[in-house]
């Protein structure tokens, strides 16, 4: 990770660590620990609550560790058809969507990374312009409806097939890390451009492919906007839309102080599975997290160099 000059232990050798510096260190460490606790606490609470008796949570007895340990929440999550269908859909959308994203991003980034690609500037300009100006929600919706894509799987894959931001990062990576000489040598040997891409460029680009897989994959996993607009068939809802129904709409109703009997029952149900479902929905991303961390950081760095 990023460290600065061995964390600066020079202070000791110079031994001009004044009293002020010690106070500075103490204040700084205290603040860091405070930040740590503030960020960490909600996460720990959710995990503990997911294993707790909902009545204990409602009574406010769960503070740190699970109270009245139970797996009831998880049992209900895994026996809930909506959630399981949503889960399955999200896995499909994520796999398919990420694959299309990767292919399209590389297909766009590689030609644009080549200096001898005639017309790259104008193409780049036209692509980049879309980052700053768009037709907007309604015209896009009308066109997608016209293309007959509403309620099709493809509507969650194609309209977002390329993220210009990611394309720029990938292009920058190709330009800065793949030696041009290597490619030129291949051309002299009679390699076609496609062959150069597949045999030389891509094998050298594993880090950026990993970064892109993660960027796109997490985005698909967490996405709900496109599904909200384009998917009306409940059987095709991704997990996030189901989560919204269970978690937010119910809780909002609670805020509204509704006193309908049926709703109260629903709310109790939601209370039982609320935390478990958050865990189940976030676990795939969180499990990958230690692995993701390294690559995500790399991606931000490459992005920061240009753009």
């Amino acid at each position: 990770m990023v460290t600065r000059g061995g964390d600066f232990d020079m202070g000791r050798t110079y031994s001009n660590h004044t009293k002020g510096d010690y106070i500075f260190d103490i204040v700084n460490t205290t603040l860091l620990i405070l930040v740590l606790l503030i960020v960490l606490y909600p996460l720990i609470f959710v995990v503990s609550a997911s294993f707790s008796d909902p009545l204990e949570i409602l009574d406010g007895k769960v503070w740190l560790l699970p109270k009245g340990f139970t797996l009831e929440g998880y049992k209900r999550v895994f026996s809930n058809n909506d959630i399981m269908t949503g889960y399955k859909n999200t896995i499909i959308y994520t796999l398919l969507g990420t694959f299309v994203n990767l292919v399209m991003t590389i297909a766009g980034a590689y030609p644009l990374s080549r200096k001898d690609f005639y017309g790259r500037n104008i193409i780049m300009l036209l692509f980049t312009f879309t980052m700053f100006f768009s037709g907007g929600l309604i015209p896009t919706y009308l066109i997608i409806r016209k293309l007959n894509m509403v309620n099709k799987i493809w509507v969650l894959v194609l309209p977002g097939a390329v993220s210009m931001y990611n394309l720029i990062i990938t292009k920058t990576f190709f330009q800065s890390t793949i030696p041009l000489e290597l490619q030129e040598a291949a051309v002299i040997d009679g390699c076609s451009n496609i062959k150069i891409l597949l045999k030389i460029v891509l094998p050298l680009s594993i880090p950026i492919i990993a970064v892109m897989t993660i960027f796109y994959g997490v985005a698909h996993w967490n996405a709900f906007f496109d599904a909200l607009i384009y998917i009306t068939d409940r059987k095709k809802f991704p997990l996030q839309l189901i989560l919204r129904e269970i978690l937010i709409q119910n809780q909002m109703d609670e805020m509204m102080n509704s006193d309908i009997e049926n709703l109260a029952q629903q709310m109790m149900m939601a209370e039982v599975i609320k935390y478990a479902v958050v865990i189940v929905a976030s676990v795939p991303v969180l499990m990958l997290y230690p692995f993701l961390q390294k690559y995500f950081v790399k991606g931000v760095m490459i992005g920061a160099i240009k753009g």
Partner: protein
Amino acid sequence: MRTLISNNTASVRLNRKKNKALKAFSRNYDLYLLILPVILYFAIFKYWPMYGVQIAFKDFIATRGIWGSPWVGIKHFSRFYNSYYFWDLIFNTLGISLYSLALGFPAPILLALMMNESRSKSLKKIVQTVTYAPHFLSTVVIVSVLVAFLSPRSGLINQIIKLLGRDPIYFMAEPKWFKTLYALSGIWQNAGWGSIIYMAALAGIDTEIYEAAMVDGASKFKRLIYITLPFLMPTAVTLLILNAGSLMNVGFEKVFLMQNERNLESSDVISTFVYRSGMISAEYSFSAAVGLFNSIINFILLISVNKTSKKLTETSLW
């Protein structure tokens, strides 16, 4: 005679240029095939809707489509401008943006500085690992955890308020709390992630400068103020431009998820309004007009912020 010659050379030059283009094209024809689907993607899903934005100047009739519907000029724009909610929407949009920018912009800088100054490497590593994590959670999860924590009956915050002997606060149902909740939960989720870029900038500072300052007897705090902070300025300015350029572009998802009938008066922003009037009420032309209005303001904002910054700090996006 003379003109003929120069005409000739010009056309030769043009021919040569054409030939060069043709040659470049035929040599790399497979690259063009490769990028073709991407060009098609941008044409269909980006530029076609841009062309279709003309619906904002028409009265949309479903049977006649975008292209066949009759023109009505700026009718929808003036309806929006003259509506009683016009200024409310603008103020909410700008208010939420400015509020979260004011609170959220310094947060990652402070965090990066704190981590950078930490004497314990392992504490720094732990803070990094933990603060990056919320960035990966979905907006739905973030908002639901927020709502759960603020619940008047079972939420932790209200438990504490009740312990203190006060009445529970219906945070999500009170308009005056919306901006604060939006901004603070944003910091909770993204400050760690945002600090990465500053950590990278900090890693680039030459340690010799610090050593020289130490020899001169500068305290840790002074070194922070006079060395570290100035080094972060270019990065900070660039990010500020980016943020300022999208002031009118509040992210739809989180506002939409946090929104309910009770807090609508302070939570309704342009993007949620476009969604409601377009997708729910099917007033396509009108909401396309509102959306276009927003896009144009955004675009102007970005360009002018960028220009100003170019003049003042010589930092710009392009």
